[in-house]
């Protein structure tokens, strides 16, 4: 099957503007701006069943239709903060198929009437930002960005904005605060960005991968898109596969492919032929799934993964084999969340601090079984009380790790 998102793997040099144009590039954007009403663009995306690829899976077209048309100007923001441990798909898209992403961003901007769009890249993507700046300049020179596009009244500028090393800025309202020149701390929601976003104006925020789907949907139609994937999760997804597999990397597959296909058919199985012990389907924020044959044969889509007591999230699949101890895993994830907690809300700031003390003690062999109970207790007390998903998700691996892999903790605690 031809690639929908990672098209650079089929079409060499698609990151050059002429090659992209020759392969149908910008036709959808030109058609939209010259022949379609903005709401028609939103409706096609709505009909396609496209859901947000940043992790939450919210229906994209529905989000666009929430834009407040009584308050102007509007903004569109691309979330290129890609910081979830295990996620590395947006970097490949931006480096290798940048114009399809930029065209998707332009289409979204037209659909909601935005004349300015920002791409928020994590600070580490310094080189990627410089590269995108070049590509944006090429689009301006070719008349795909700027004033009065295609002789219409529509104008659009795209700007890049670099973060500076803060996982929390992937949370959409923290991201907006960061563009506004503040510390990246989440806002209380509601109001949500489509009514109160960047500079207090209606704003649509989507993930890089989400935007990259849009030109293909406009070009080929909503029905074409729905021929791929499952009823609940239409289309294709890039699965970032890491951990103990033979061939880690990005794999673009239709939703509904199984874990077994991903790990064994595409990634060559596990190193040294060892068995899979656990899967984290949504990066460090993920619940730990105990793996058996039934799990391996489960379809990777939003609804099916939920039946395993986990979420698909951004589909950053981390694979753990039987040599990996779960107390070590949660010590790693909590080290991360403790470092990245923004400090705004108490349950997350203090909870992660104490979880870090406990996981460290347990992993170093100095903990008791009461410490494990206390850790579980702290994690559960945090749940439902944090201001944003960072705090909520920081507890997932801890709770499911202790509850689903008790033997790993019994092994390390003092009698």
């Amino acid at each position, binding site marked *: 099957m031809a690639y929908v998102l990672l098209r650079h793997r089929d079409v060499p040099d698609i990151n050059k503007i002429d090659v992209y144009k020759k392969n149908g590039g910008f036709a959808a954007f030109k058609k939209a701006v010259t022949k379609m009403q903005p709401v028609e663009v939103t409706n096609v995306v709505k009909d396609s069943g496209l859901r947000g690829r940043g992790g939450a899976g919210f229906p994209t077209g529905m989000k666009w239709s929430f834009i407040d048309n009584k308050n102007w100007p509007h903004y569109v923001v691309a979330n290129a903060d890609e*910081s979830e441990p295990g996620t*590395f798909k947006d970097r490949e898209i931006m480096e290798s198929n940048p114009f399809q992403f930029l065209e998707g961003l332009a289409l979204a901007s037209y659909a909601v009437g935005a004349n300015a769009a920002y791409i928020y890249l*994590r600070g*580490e993507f*310094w080189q990627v930002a410089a590269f995108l700046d070049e590509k944006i300049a090429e689009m301006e020179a070719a008349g795909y960005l700027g004033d009065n596009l295609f002789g219409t009244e529509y104008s659009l500028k795209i700007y890049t904005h670099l*973060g500076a090393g803060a996982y929390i800025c992937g949370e959409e309202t923290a991201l907006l605060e960061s563009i506004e*020149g503040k510390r990246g701390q989440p806002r209380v929601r509601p109001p949500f960005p489509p009514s109160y976003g960047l*500079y207090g104006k209606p704003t649509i925020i989507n993930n890089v991968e989400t935007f990259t789907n849009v030109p293909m949907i406009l070009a080929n139609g909503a029905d074409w898109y729905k021929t791929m994937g499952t009823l609940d999760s239409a289309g294709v997804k890039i699965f970032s596969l*890491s951990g103990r597999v033979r061939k880690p990397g990005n794999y673009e597959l239709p939703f509904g492919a199984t874990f077994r296909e991903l790990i064994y058919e595409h990634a060559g199985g596990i190193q040294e032929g060892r068995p899979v012990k656990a899967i984290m389907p949504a990066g460090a924020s993920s619940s730990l799934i105990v793996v058996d044959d039934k799990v391996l044969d489960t379809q990777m889509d939003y609804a099916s993964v939920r039946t395993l007591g986990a979420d698909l999230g951004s589909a950053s699949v981390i694979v753990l084999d039987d040599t990996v101890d779960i107390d070590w895993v949660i010590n790693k994830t909590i080290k991360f969340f403790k470092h990245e907690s*923004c400090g705004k809300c108490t349950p997350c700031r203090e909870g992660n601090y104490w979880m870090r003390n406990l996981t460290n003690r347990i992993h170093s062999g100095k903990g008791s079984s009461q410490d494990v109970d206390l850790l579980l207790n702290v994690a559960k007390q945090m749940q439902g009380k944090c201001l944003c998903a960072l705090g909520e998700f920081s507890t997932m691996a801890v709770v499911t790790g202790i509850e689903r892999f008790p033997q790993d903790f019994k092994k390390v605690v003092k009698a």
Partner: protein
Amino acid sequence: MSLEKTYPKEVKQILAKYPPEHKRSAVMPLLYLAQREEGYINKAAMQDIAQMLDITETEVASIVGFYSLYHDEKAGKYRMQVCTDLPCALRGADEFLNNLCGNLGIKVGETTADGLVTVEAVMCLASCDKAPMFQTQGPDGIKYHDLMTIDRTMELIDALKQANKEEK
């Protein structure tokens, strides 16, 4: 020191990205600019940026403190930031970092005697399939070094040393 005098073109470009009534948005790119030469941001630079954007020096300092890629203390010319987060650690990142420190004769967080390289352990850099990996943060920005070995890393450090000598 004044950024507007040292980098007039860059400052103008940065300010043009944001609505004039929201020029505070320029604080992050301006901080990168201020950090370019010395690798850290001093008090005078924070004052300069605060003045330019009509915000307080404390607000600028709070940004420097919040984001891990801004530094308010001098370190090596290049910060070698090794990812040791879960996915990289599953592919040998902790051993890589230990061996690197052993080879350089320093601990994590320390700087080589010649002041060229500071080794740091950092959180996920979105290169989980290419571990062991690190980024270098230096005067020429941030660069990724994927699928690294100790040998290749020592070669890179030698090359940086050589370039540094030639500059001087």
